[in-house]
């Protein structure tokens, strides 16, 4: 599990170097802005090209890895977080970015969200939440508002939507933020802080599905007559879960910004500490000798 990898020259990447296939998203999809913002932040932070690792599950937004020219993996539905956990833990030298939608993250992969948060795995996770299933063409998603009609709820959604912010606070994520794909500067700032945060950092990004749920986030968009109301970080107790819970109560359209931010040992650090201690018990021995010693104990 070597983490001694020769440091690459940190040359500034150009957008051209980072672009891959042209996105297959529908015209005016909010996800274009998310991709552009990701390019901006990666360029700004000077992350070496080969250390960028883009991970996704299944969904419209989960096509992300094909649109970034970087090491990427397009996995199965709902399991991007455990996959990324395996990458992050086994390769601490990499920058692991997970992209996905509300169905992938909050529905089929809901259990993994809780556990990646509680374990505080070191990675950044952007949930491009559009309140609808887009790839399969307009079914109710776990964040679809009550009463909204879809192909699976022709009389309007009857199941209470989940509250991603409250769920993340409860399950122990150490950086929780909320942004809007139409607010590029704010989105850039949130992504940058998420990447720099040591531990499990999540940014819920409201990203409009212009095909199936147009106007879903107009109430948070001043250009569409809404209000983009920011969290006041001067007054907010950033390390208080109860304050974050309080902020999470109303998400229509709710506040944007960092809801909660704290430092806690990451899963990566805790596992590494055990590894280091275990290595001390076998200091000076070759791996084969460690195994021979084990055999000797079985005689």
């Amino acid at each position: 599990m070597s983490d001694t990898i020769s440091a690459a020259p940190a040359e500034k990447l150009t957008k051209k170097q980072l672009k891959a296939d042209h996105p297959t998203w529908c015209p005016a999809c909010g996800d274009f802005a998310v991709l552009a913002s990701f390019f901006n932040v990666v360029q700004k932070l000077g992350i070496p090209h080969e250390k960028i690792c883009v991970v996704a599950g299944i969904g419209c937004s989960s096509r992300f890895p094909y649109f970034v020219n970087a090491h990427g993996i397009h996995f199965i539905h709902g399991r991007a977080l455990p996959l990324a956990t395996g990458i992050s833990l086994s390769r601490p030298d990499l920058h692991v970015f997970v992209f996905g939608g509300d169905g992938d993250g909050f529905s089929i992969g809901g259990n993994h969200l809780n556990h990646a948060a509680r374990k505080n795995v070191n990675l950044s996770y952007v949930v491009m939440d559009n309140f609808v299933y887009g790839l399969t063409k307009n079914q109710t998603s776990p964040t679809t508002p009550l009463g909204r009609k879809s192909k699976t709820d022709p009389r309007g959604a009857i199941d209470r939507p989940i509250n991603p912010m409250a769920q993340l606070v409860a399950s122990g994520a150490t950086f929780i933020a909320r942004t809007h794909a139409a607010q590029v500067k704010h989105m850039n700032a949130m992504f940058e802080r998420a990447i720099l945060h040591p531990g499990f950092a999540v940014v819920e990004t409201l990203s409009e599905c212009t095909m199936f749920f147009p106007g879903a986030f107009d109430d948070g968009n001043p250009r569409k007559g809404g209000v983009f109301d920011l969290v006041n970080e001067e007054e907010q107790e950033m390390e208080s879960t109860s304050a974050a819970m309080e902020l999470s109560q109303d998400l229509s359209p709710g506040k944007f910004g960092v809801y909660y931010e704290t430092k806690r040992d990451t899963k990566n650090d805790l596992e590494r500490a055990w590894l280091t201690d275990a290595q001390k018990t076998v200091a000076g021995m070759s791996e084969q000798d460690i195994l021979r010693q084990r055999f000797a104990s079985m005689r």
Partner: protein
Amino acid sequence: MSQSTAHAPTDSPSSALRNAVIRLAGDSQDGIQSVGAFLGQLAGSTAQEVMTYMTIPSTISGGPSIFQVHLGSGDVLHPGDEADTLVAFYQHSYDNHLKTVKDGGICFYDSDQVEEVKEERGIIHIGVPFTSATIEAIGGTTKSRGKNIFVLGLLCAVYQLDRVRMSEIIAGKFGKKSEDILRNAMLAFDAGYAWPVHDIEHMPMAPGENEGDKRLSTDGNTMLSLGLIAGGVRFGAGYPITPWTTIMEFLRSELPKYNGMFIQCEDELAAVSLAIGASFSGHLAITGSSGPGLSLKSEAIGYACMAEMPLIVVNIQRGGPSTGLPTSVEQSDLLQAIYGSHGDAPRVVIAPKNVEDCFYTAIEACRIAKEYSTPVLILSDQAIATRLEAFQEPDLSKHWREPTLDLSERGADFKPYPLDKITKHSPPGARSSEGKYPVVTGLEHDEWGHPSGNPENHEKMTAKRRNKLLKLAESYGPTEIYGEESGSLLFVGWGSTYGPIKEATDRMNSEGQKVGSVHLRHVHPLPGDLAEIFDRYDHVLVPEMNDSGMYGYGQLATLLRAQTCNAKIQSTNKVQGISFRVLELVTAAEKLIANK
């Protein structure tokens, strides 16, 4: 040497026992497994062979449990058809297990617990008050503690086992805990050793015939774990399920010493996903489970086939379907292991035949996974996983694969999915000289990893994934035949039926029949020379611990019939949650031969 026994142990080597099958029957909390483990460890360190068999109730605590030990001075291939000696701790142990004792065998029973004694079939009954004698020896009121060690002492005296070495083994086990515990254990052991058993003569075991001083005794899950380490695995992830769990426990503690890690996950889906993540990162990773857990991992295994990720998946089979018989043996996951997923998802499946073979099978799985960029399933089972065997320590100078992480720069000719070569991925962290980076994907893709729905491309890529495994099958050496190389009947087996099949082969050949046996490690893809081998026998019989299904054939037999179109292939199946007896196999084979 005990002074209090009625008969002096006989010194005549001719009367020494070459084999002894001892069945201990009690409750799961009585520590009868540790008596078995002590005997196993003793056998391993005195050049004797040993094989054990146990049942554990799948209740939370307690319930009837047995541990059977087969000690032998030569080859021991199976845990024993019937017991020479029964040790019954309770009335229910006595009532349920007396029938497993051979005619004229011996039954030790706890005279404090067992009342009814049936005199039948010449079985010698010896009542010993395990409970009260132990209390007397240790003092105090430690009701049921220590009587297992008392029984161990008793058996050591009866079979004239190496008392000094056994005392050392007990000291090694209990000495770490506290002086009191060790003192009590030794008091119980000595009391058992000195107990007068007037009704029988001592039955000394013949000295072991196995050469070499480096003999181990352990169970299959431990050997599989060690094989994975020797094969270069440095990352794993899992979720607890019986009987797989001891592998994850072992690796969780052991891998950090090798600069590796094993992660306990929230569920089976996460476990296989973490392993694929580590594999994508360039490591050789494992996950594992038992039957139901393997089903949960199926989707991700299909992904690993499509994305061509090296991955080891261990499946310790148990009785199924569903929760089934979680602590019993079965071989009913073969087809799941080979086909369980969606779409055409070829992968490799290999199966160890005994505890020792777990080590070498694991190393081979590691080699195949890396060389062919493919998921490899290791199909072990509850019997191999939990029983003890003694064998020679593996030579690491010959059996060792260094873990590798290849982060070298990839040149202009790099393609993640070349049609003319076996895929070798470029893990993250590896630079690309051209500045173009690959995406590993579960969508059908072209050679560069771009999604592609092109009809010809899908057909070519499906063939690529299939053909690399055919290439693997071509690399197998000729299939080994045990016994007669042609003749009247060939047994074909896989997994833990190895011992009983080998002994059935020997027994039939010693009676003048012409019988051979083939035991397959490579169950998928199958070796290519089987059709020719089958032609050399009048009958082909496939014993399997799974059901004969709708069409009368077990799971391997079904595959062999599909592979060779040979109508001679017949099945004999057993789904009782226990292994085949040698006699059952001989009877099935003789019946098949007679029906000709």
